[in-house]
């Protein structure tokens, strides 16, 4: 975990209001793992005040680059979308704990369940799983056809099932409606809280949930980002204890 002035390699619009941001930061690329996130100073001159947490969607350790995918939803992401190529971007990271995959045996089958901008961290995870010889299926949910991104990219590594709320692309409905856990050893899920709640309570198996919460420090010092847990401590910090938690530990 350190502060880096990364350089923006490019920003591209990949779906409605969703940008792909690639930055060059070799040290960060070396250190980062699937499921970790970056705490980004989106603007210049310290504006806006707080950093914004964005997941790492892809890492190219040879090139020394990292890729994020983010949706413009408010001030910070709007400011970020306005930043230009070659500008420097101040990043604190990599933060948090990634998806645990060492316990998964070669040849087993896992599923990835992502909703909207919860999908990005699953992409690098898919790559890593496949590289380890683990089979994966991705269930990706979006609001509508124009929100869909990275479906093709995922297809290179796994079989992809898409659901849209309005049915304009793939299955109509929520992604949790189409998930199948047959023959699956675990799942990795990231998305809005209602989706994660359904995943936790509806699926017959245990897995890993990546949570989102508003963050101040991003490093565990301010206690802004807690979530209740079943552990002795009764709560965990999403930034430093998470963002990934075993599904049975968090109370949703």
């Amino acid at each position, binding site marked *: 975990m350190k*502060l880096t002035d990364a350089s923006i390699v490019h920003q591209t619009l990949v779906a409605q209001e969703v940008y792909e941001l690639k930055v060059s930061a070799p040290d960060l690329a070396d250190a980062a793992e699937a499921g970790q996130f970056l705490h980004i100073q989106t603007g210049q001159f310290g504006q806006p005040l707080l950093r914004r947490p964005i997941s790492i969607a892809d890492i190219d350790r040879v090139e020394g680059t990292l890729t994020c995918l983010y949706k413009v939803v408010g001030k910070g992401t709007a400011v970020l979308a306005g930043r230009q190529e070659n500008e420097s971007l101040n990043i604190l990271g990599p933060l948090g704990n990634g998806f645990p995959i060492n316990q998964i045996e070669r040849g087993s089958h896992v599923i990835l369940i992502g909703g909207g901008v919860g999908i990005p961290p699953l992409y690098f995870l898919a790559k890593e799983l496949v590289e380890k010889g683990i089979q994966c299926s991705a269930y990706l949910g979006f609001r509508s056809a124009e929100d869909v991104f990275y479906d093709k990219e995922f297809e290179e590594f796994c079989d992809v099932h898409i659901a849209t709320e309005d049915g304009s692309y793939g299955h109509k409905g929520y992604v949790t409606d189409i998930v199948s856990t047959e023959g699956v050893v675990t799942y990795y899920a990231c998305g809005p809280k209602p989706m994660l709640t359904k995943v936790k309570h509806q699926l017959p198996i245990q897995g890993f949930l990546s949570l989102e919460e508003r963050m101040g420090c991003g490093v565990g*010092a301010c206690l802004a980002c807690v979530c209740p847990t079943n552990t002795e401590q009764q709560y965990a910090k999403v930034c430093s204890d998470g963002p990934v938690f075993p599904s049975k530990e968090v109370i949703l």
Partner: protein
Amino acid sequence: MNTTIELPGMSMKTPILPASGCYGFGQEYSQFYDLDLLGAITVKAVTAEKRLGNQVPRIAETESGMLNAIGLQNPGVDHVIEHELEALTSNNIPVLVNIAGNAPEDYVETSRKIASSGKASALELNISCPNVKSGGIQFGSDPDIAYDLTKAVKAVSDIPLYVKLSPNVTDIVAMAKAVEAAGADGLSMINTMVGMQIDVTTGQLVLANGKGGLSGPAIKPVAIRMIYDVAQEVSIPIIGMGGVQTVDDVIEFMMAGASAVAVGTANFQNPMICPELIQALPVRLKELGFENMQDVIGRSFASCGQPLSL
């Protein structure tokens, strides 16, 4: 330049320290730099019993500021002494322990335990909590209640006591004088200003707790004004805070009358802010023509023989 400063209970090699609640118990930031670089450390508010704090969302961003309503989450005084303060004993910096509570007895018990643990250099009484016994009035908004609380805590503690003043009052000077009269050894000011944010897409308050405390650069002009007013009316030292971001902010607080300066919200933007400011301070002071850091304190109102610059 000599940047040491002697405050009650705290021999600081630099006047810069982190503010309570923005720095946990220091362990997180020790991943970035050696805590011994700091003038002192202020730890998160400690209460008599363990507290889980408020529901999330606990923070909201505002223009040049943020609102927080953490709700005093902490593992309770016994755990803090045994684990958190214990861990800090391996450092060579003064430890200022922030104390909170909802009844005078809470404060007294927590203060007594911390003081007698031998692991704190001084106490910082966070009197911005609602006093459940007085119908929710904040300890920090009634001079008589603040006086009584300060007296009660002084009676059970043999280490110096700083009282942290709330800015949400008509007359901050009256508050400062009351706690000074009750025996406070120093003041910390300012705590956050009560604010609120509404999400217009839902019509709901953003913070689960409804209201929150406004911190960050937005409140700096109010902090400077209050310190300026108080510094001229009390003779105990002031730890100043509220929106510090740059080395010039540190100097502005000192000129307003602060003897030390705490950095809160800015740690979130830049985890290296404290060591950066500590390094920059003597350089900038020299650049401004000061030979002695002591000359800066209260400069804005202390009569000065000659103008600083032309």
